[in-house]
């Protein structure tokens, strides 16, 4: 069963960190990715650029509305994700708890609804 781990944290806090702290964070993430790849849980994962680089698109009455920024202003922002394979929610929560940002941000664990690509 697949779960999406959505990583939320306050991105301005992260930007305020000095270069050494940012580097050590990056290294922690690399170690983490490696460990869940080795244990066979990793399916995909990426960091996202901050919400200042987000663009939101809506189509209303066939008209395209394009706006700057994320779809909603929140205290913590989606900053990255992992797609993992786990046997149940307990295992998924255990993997999520080890995401480095779990210590200060929040990791939302969402089960994936499997859909096959229509041929």
């Amino acid at each position, binding site marked *: *069963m697949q779960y999406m781990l959505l990583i939320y944290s306050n991105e301005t806090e992260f930007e305020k960190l000095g270069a050494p702290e940012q580097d050590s964070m990056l290294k922690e993430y690399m170690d983490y990715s490696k460990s869940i790849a080795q244990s066979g849980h990793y399916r995909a994962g990426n960091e996202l650029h901050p919400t200042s680089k987000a663009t939101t698109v809506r189509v209303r009455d066939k008209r395209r509305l394009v706006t700057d920024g994320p779809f909603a202003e929140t205290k913590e922002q989606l900053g990255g994700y992992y797609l993992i394979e786990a*046997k*149940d*929610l*307990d295992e998924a*929560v255990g993997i999520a708890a080890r995401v480095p940002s779990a210590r200060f941000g929040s990791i939302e*664990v969402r*089960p994936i*609804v499997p859909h096959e690509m229509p041929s």
Partner: protein
Amino acid sequence: MGFGLTVARRQGFGSLLDGMTIEQIYREESGRILATLIRLLGDFDLAEEALQEAFAAALAQWPTEGTPANPRAWLVSTGRNKAVDRLRRRARFEAQSDELERLTGLADRMAEEPEESMLSDDRLRLIFTCCHPALSTEAQVSLTLRTLCGLSTEEIARAFLVPLATMAQRIVRAQQKIRDARIPYRVPADDELPARLDAVLLAIYLVFNEGYNATAGDAVIRRELCSEAIRLGRLVCALMPERTETRALLALMLLHDSRRDARVSPAGEIVLLDEQDRTLWDAEQVREGLALVESALRDGTAGPYALQAAIAGVHASAVRPAETDWGQIAALYSLLLWVQPSPVVELNRAVAIAMADGAPSGLRLLDELEFRGELAEYYLLPAARGDLLRRMNRWTEAAVAYRRALSMARQGTEQNFLARRLAEVEAQISQEQAN
């Protein structure tokens, strides 16, 4: 649930086989069979339907073919087969891919299941599933009552004073989350167990408290909640006898519940502990509760349930109110305050100290508590102050405190009690003025 039982009753089914009628088997075993079916099928609704179908099949077959050697195993495997048939039919008629997927998932799971797993007691796993931290506490409590106690959704809605539709939605959502997020049916591993067991015990305790201290609602249902909580407490105790907290919680519930007939007057008014007719206490429950609390305390580190049970035990051991060992109660509250700091515990400790060392020492502690303002909404604080002031013959101040308490109390029986006390105090005031 309840359908199988109704069928058994309606048909007056009474064939005694091995001393057990189908009705008795239903009453005693259906909870355990349902738990196993939920684990095997991974779906609450399907499991409930399967349970009813299995009992319907038993009603049709056992009278002529004889009761199987192991009725429970027969019912589980019949229920499981009925569920598979049902899924096959649905898959054929509705041609829904998710039904097919569930069917293959089910077939895979069954292939992995060893035959003897049909005989395991799954109620413990199920209670850990129902009280999983990924579900809200409200959902945990409702689902536990629905699934492990077999209460109807309507009864649970009435017990918690929630509209039926809201309760039904709460239960269905929790069941769907268990299925779709795949919350496992498993007793947690040792490293998680203490925290997860705490959640289970809390849910049981909440069920009990809702019955015991309900702020409103139907008295019959409230009593049923208490006995269901005790039943769950017994179940967890029987299945995890090595855990001290489970015994302590059961002791606490038994000791409180032993006073159920004495704590409300025939007119429905609250009777305080020192005014209760102690011959109405359930002696058997007191005996069992005391034995459990002693065994829990012998285990060493006393947690909050053990300390609260010990306090209830000291009360239960006093034949007359005057014999109550208030010094020991005050000491136990001090320990409780240390393991579980809370202003409510502080309030109770202050009252115990007032009883042990005299009203002024207790009043001093209550004044501090009031000054901090943490219990500003809690009617028992001014009620306790009123009581101590009354004992000190400070009638005017007592009247002020009772009036405040009265303005904060919500339940009818509480209001009546406070009004009665206020009237007594006011009578004293006018008597003094007359002199």
